[in-house]
């Protein structure tokens, strides 16, 4: 198997992408991988956040219009991901981190499809706080977690195990701090406004 991977890595195409002095090689493939990520993860995360009750007055159904962009982002990243894998095939397939990334993407895609079905096909009812039912919310949080793992693992393939383990701990702490900060900021910003402004009823999903 590793002979085949080495052959792929040394193929003319992989060598050109990796070693061309042109910015249209490696860097552009990486940039396309980042574009795909930002649409795939960014837009699906906004759908997940809406189902969790953020932007509660926003009707959910029209958000489906962005779903094709999410899928397009996935295919851009599948293609550029295969190309990037070809450039360092041997070391990636020996890297446990790479398998974690692939497994997290599989989990994220499964939960994304479940979220799509529940929000846009079954059109689950939203509660008085504008949130989807608990089961859907669990799917949404799971998808966000899978994306967090996939993006972190993708970034960390380039590092040693020693750095990786420490960075994972740092990311967990940083995320906990960020969630705490967001919570405090949201509390401070909404202070007073809750009692002053009449609250519009949240959007339904019909």
């Amino acid at each position: 198997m590793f002979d085949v991977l080495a052959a792929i890595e040394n193929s003319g195409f992989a060598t050109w992408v990796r070693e061309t002095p042109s910015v249209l090689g490696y860097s552009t493939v990486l940039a396309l991988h980042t574009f795909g990520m930002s649409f795939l993860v960014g837009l699906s995360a906004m759908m997940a956040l809406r189902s969790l009750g953020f932007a509660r007055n926003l009707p959910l159904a029209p958000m489906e219009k962005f779903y094709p962009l999410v899928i397009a982002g996935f295919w851009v990243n599948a293609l550029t991901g295969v190309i990037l894998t070809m450039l360092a095939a041997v070391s990636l397939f020996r890297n446990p981190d790479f398998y974690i990334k692939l497994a997290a993407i599989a989990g994220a895609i499964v939960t994304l499809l479940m979220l799509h079905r529940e929000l846009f096909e079954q059109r689950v009812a939203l509660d008085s706080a504008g949130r989807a039912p608990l089961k859907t919310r669990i799917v949404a949080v799971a998808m966000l977690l899978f994306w967090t793992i996939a993006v972190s693992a993708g970034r960390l393939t380039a590092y040693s195990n020693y750095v990786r383990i420490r960075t994972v701990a740092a990311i967990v702490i940083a995320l906990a701090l960020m969630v705490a900060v967001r919570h405090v900021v949201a509390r401070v910003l909404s202070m007073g406004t809750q009692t002053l402004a009449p609250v519009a009823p949240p959007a339904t999903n019909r």
Partner: protein
Amino acid sequence: MEAFLRHWLEWPAVAAFINANAWAWPLCETLHFFGIILLIGGVGIFDLRILGMGKGLPPEALKRLLPWGVYGFILCAVTGLTFVTGVRANVPMSPYDLIRTDPWLQLKLLFIALAGVNLVAFYATGMARRVDELGANDDAPGLAKAIAGASLFLWLGVIYFGRLIPEAL
């Protein structure tokens, strides 16, 4: 002026922190990516609605997702400043020389500045208020669409040039 910038842009404490903690640089890289995702998710979805995609979404309600984009921008700005001010931890050069010699970083900074000007234009031309008044399925004015299109183009450009920065090192 040069001596001033050379001195002021270099933050030895940042470089020392990165050198002393192996996780600091990859942590900032990962958070930079989380920031990109939130920025394109929160701001991009608003731009796309103004451009006419997902018109069933009233902009006034969609605006509640914008703080996530702002949060993403702050994440990117803080980690990005760490990369520049602490560059010596990774490459033997001063932040001043990095900014002076790397055309991709210069283009990236230019595009960030243009995105800022674009945002000011969104408010100064009154388009922000016009967009606020749109209901579900209403079409945005042409100028608002131009500004939204420019916003998407500029932010994707920022990502692209960011990826090219190492090419010139």
